[in-house]
């Protein structure tokens, strides 16, 4: 087997990288493929919490790299999906604990075992980012429609462009989109951001308080039916698998009676 290694990155912190990693991992696994999620945010481990697996972490990525355990021993199986695993980051080490060569080797081993390897990159553009992308062939750039996040995403796109040899494609996920604010011209739209960054779109995820609830429960939102943000992540997974899934109409989000009236007179283009 040779799986696809996809790094999830953003430049700026706090735009939803880890949330996206967890949800894309879960969504892919739900389609039946085997998935390993790798937390590369060494020293600031969080993916285990989002997955609700923090109590099951025994070994971590640095233990594997430093050969204190076998790869299979460090992989934590998901509670619900038997075909989904997490390779946790070390919490008590820092970004220098792993180098690019070691990461390449690790990704090579993982893609021999799994259909998809999802690497959650740390924020920033320094060594942590460089190591996270070292073993990847594809990238997902996460941003929100805010100026600072878009600027940092552009830096990341520039760095990915410079790695064209290794990173064959990268696509954008626009997170925390607020259709109401776009409609009132208080926020950049999806088209605005795509035009400015000049990148391909992989998905649009609406702002959703339920994400916080799902983090608190340790159950990624993609596992829950009837929630728009969860559906957005499931659509992203289907697009990664090559399906042509139309982008959802974010106007439907404000689909109370008032929202419908507003939409009728002033449809938002998001």
């Amino acid at each position: 087997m040779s799986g696809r290694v996809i790094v999830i990155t953003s430049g700026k912190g706090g735009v939803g990288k880890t949330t996206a990693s967890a949800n894309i991992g879960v969504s892919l696994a739900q389609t039946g493929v085997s998935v390993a999620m790798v937390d590369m945010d060494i020293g600031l481990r969080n993916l285990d919490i989002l997955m609700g697996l923090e109590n099951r972490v025994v070994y971590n990525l640095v233990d594997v790299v430093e050969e204190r355990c076998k790869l299979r021993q460090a992989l934590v199986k998901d509670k619900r999906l038997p075909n989904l695993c997490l390779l946790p980051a070390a919490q008590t080490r820092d970004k220098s604990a792993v180098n690019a060569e070691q990461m390449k080797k690790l990704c090579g081993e993982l893609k021999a075992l799994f259909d998809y390897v999802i690497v959650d990159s740390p924020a920033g553009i320094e060594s942590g980012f460089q190591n996270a992308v070292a073993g990847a062939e594809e990238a997902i750039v996460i941003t929100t429609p805010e100026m600072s996040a878009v600027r940092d995403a552009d830096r990341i796109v520039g760095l990915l462009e410079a790695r064209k040899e290794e990173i064959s494609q990268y696509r954008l996920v626009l997170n925390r989109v607020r259709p109401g604010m776009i409609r009132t011209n208080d926020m950049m739209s999806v088209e605005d951001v795509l035009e400015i960054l000049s990148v391909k779109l992989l998905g649009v995820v609406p702002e959703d308080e339920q994400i916080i609830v799902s983090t608190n429960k340790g159950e990624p939102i993609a596992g829950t039916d009837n929630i728009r943000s969860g559906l957005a992540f499931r659509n992203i997974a289907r697009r990664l698998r090559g399906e042509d899934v139309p982008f959802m109409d974010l106007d439907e989000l404000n689909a109370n009676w008032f929202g419908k009236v507003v939409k009728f007179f002033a449809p938002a283009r998001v």
Partner: protein
Amino acid sequence: MQVVNWFFRRKDESVRSQAKDRMRLMLIHDRLELPADRLSSLEEELIAVVSRYFDIDRQTTRFDLQQYERRAALIANFPLLRSKC
């Protein structure tokens, strides 16, 4: 000089279009590693060079930074009044 003004020829003053315009200009500078004052000095030099050959209409002289995918292009428009030679 007019470098900032020409860029902000807004159709409307909405926050969204302000954000988009600022964003685009910022990223063009970022990608080219261009300091903020660099374009205005280029603009002045270009006007000086063209003015050695032509009388130009300074009022309607325009510079425009455009984005083509991830590249930028500087479009200059010098209305020429008469040749100086």
